[in-house]
């Protein structure tokens, strides 16, 4: 299986260009965050936002909107996007397959099954209570995929087949359960859209440790993955412990993705497309690709959440739907415009 990446012809990022991109992305992130805090059904100005963040007044309606509704959404979308982008970059580097998506590891399928069981068996209908079952289901499914895929000796093709098989298995179980219970379908069909509606600061706090640990493991795995991209034997010759590297990368993907699914439901696309854009801007070195994937992912999801909130779409379009609606055409456009170049 050869790896390839989307790229502009004769574009290979140099250090200067990379820093330019980095600056541009940070600027965009800042501007977008301000927009996300001020726009919505109730437009708020800069002074109110500043006040809400620094000098919170619980009786001021603007402050309440900014501080309790928009800020958690902004942080949640940013964290989820960064996590999805990083896990996408990791799985594509690890399987050397540019089409690999974190969803392939069965995390989304496992989380969905956990949620459906939770509704069916425990009668839970509040999405805030899905967090731990979604996380548990996602972790269980991905460990299963990883073991079937050959554990630390995972070869790319096998991992993909195992992932697809386990995902399909879980999806089939989920659908069967949904057919049995109409009430379950009624709760599930809204959760599956994926979004940051009504996200609680407490949720973010409880998931933060998973995200931080995942990001740390991602950075550690990055050192070995760089060598692994040169091929198994070369990496071993360079003294990289390939099995350990894969295991670390796998754990990072599972933690980052699992926490995201638990927070916002299954969000398609970010993990697949963001690394391509990041590699185009930063080159194939995994350290840069991780950093850029995190930033572009955050940008993508904050933008998706903001767009979905605006009146344009009736003020109530989930971020997960928006990422697919924006991302699909973008991916196809990139493919058409740049062709595909072998790495």
């Amino acid at each position, binding site marked *: *299986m050869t790896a*390839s990446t*989307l790229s502009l012809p004769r574009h290979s990022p140099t250090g200067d260009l990379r820093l330019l991109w980095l600056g541009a992305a940070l600027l965009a992130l800042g501007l977008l965050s301000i927009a996300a805090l001020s726009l919505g059904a109730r437009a708020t100005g800069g002074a109110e936002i500043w006040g809400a963040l620094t000098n919170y007044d619980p009786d001021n309606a603007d402050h309440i909107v900014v501080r309790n509704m928009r800020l958690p959404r902004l942080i949640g979308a940013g964290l989820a996007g960064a996590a999805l982008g990083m896990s996408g970059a990791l799985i594509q580097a690890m399987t050397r397959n*540019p*089409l690999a*998506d974190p969803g392939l590891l069965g995390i989304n399928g496992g989380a969905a099954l956990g949620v459906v069981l939770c509704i069916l068996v425990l009668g839970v209908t509040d999405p805030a209570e899905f967090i731990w079952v979604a996380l548990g289901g996602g972790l269980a499914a991905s460990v299963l995929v990883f073991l*079937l895929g*050959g554990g630390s000796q995972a*070869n790319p*093709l*096998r991992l*993909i*087949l*195992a992932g*697809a*098989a*386990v995902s*399909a*298995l879980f*999806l*089939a*179980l989920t*659908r*069967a359960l*949904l*057919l*049995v219970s*109409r009430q379950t*379908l*009624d709760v599930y*069909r*809204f959760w*599956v*859209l994926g979004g940051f509606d009504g996200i609680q600061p407490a949720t973010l706090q409880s998931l933060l440790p998973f995200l931080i640990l995942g990001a740390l493991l991602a950075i550690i795995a990055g050192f070995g993955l760089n060598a692994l991209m040169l091929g198994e034997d070369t990496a071993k010759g360079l003294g990289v412990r390939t099995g350990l590297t894969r295991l670390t990368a796998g754990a990072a993907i599972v933690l980052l993705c699992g926490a995201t699914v638990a927070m916002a439901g299954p969000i*398609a*696309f970010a993990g*697949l497309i963001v690394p391509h854009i990041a590699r185009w801007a930063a080159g194939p070195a995994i350290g840069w690709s991780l950093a850029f994937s995190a930033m572009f992912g955050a940008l993508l999801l904050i933008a998706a959440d903001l767009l979905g909130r605006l009146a344009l779409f009736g003020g109530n*379009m989930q971020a*997960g*739907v928006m*990422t*697919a*609606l924006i*991302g*699909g*055409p973008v*991916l*196809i456009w990139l*493919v*058409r415009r740049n*062709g*595909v170049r072998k790495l």
Partner: protein
Amino acid sequence: MIWTLRLSALSLQISRRAVLTAALLFSVVLATAVLALTLGSYPLSPADMREILTGGGTAIQQMILLDHRMPRILTALGAGAAFGLSGALFQTMMRNPLASPDVIGFNAGASCGALVAMMLTGGMVLPGAIVGALITASVVTLLAWSRGLPPYRLILTGVGASLVLTALGDLLISRMDAQTAADMAQWLIGTLNARSWSDVALVWGGLLLLAPTLVWLHFPLTRLGMADDIATGLGMALSPLRLALTGTGILLAALAVSTAGPLPFVAFAAGPIARRLIPNGRPVLLAAAATGALITLLADTAARAVPMIQLPAGVFSALIGAPVLICLLLAQFRKGTL
């Protein structure tokens, strides 16, 4: 043990194990079909069946066998074979198991088309699905085309289309009333309930029409598994070939969806399973067709076996196909051949 058949410029190599495995596969399919005909809330013995087929039996027995079970089972076999063939064509041509029609958006297109039709007209689910699948397939192929059909362009474009259509489908389901959503959830899984002889005629007629093309395409298909420049060096015109293969694969997928709905996993799994049963995966198309037919028939029989509720076959296609694929993966892993 390898035999080589030569016919002017065409040659075909057949190994003894491939012949044996293929023969075994087909006998298993046949045995399962006979078994499925006997099973049901109204059991029929093989002796009963012989009698009914020669014009005997009671009116009820005749109705059950000839009007219900036979069309249903023959449709399951035909649709499964079409799914398996379609998946194997794309996967072999693109050298990537992810290139199966269900991964690159055909099933998502069919589902989305069905949902849109339901939203707009309150019915017309099946025509909507076929139109959706065909439009998706044509648009994906057109968008991916650039002086040929490079594998990665097709897969990336297809995955993009699939994600958009899946999201749209989820969105449409969330905007429907609970009753319609539940009905659609049933159909969107793929089912073989209440199939008639016209379905049998459609799917088998389609397969027969496409058979000569498939036989012809079978020769270059195995060589497409090599790198592009080698295949070109062997004198293969890649672009027209890929276009012909893609067109055939699209027709097969549409045929399957139009008779069984978007059954999950059959198109994806038939090829890899067949490839692991038969050494170096030849003749891959025949084996994939038999595997697809078997998975679909088993799934439908399992769905019929559940009493009280009419479960769709699609619930079981992945439940049956996925463990088989997993077991084969594990077995290969132990032998160290993967």
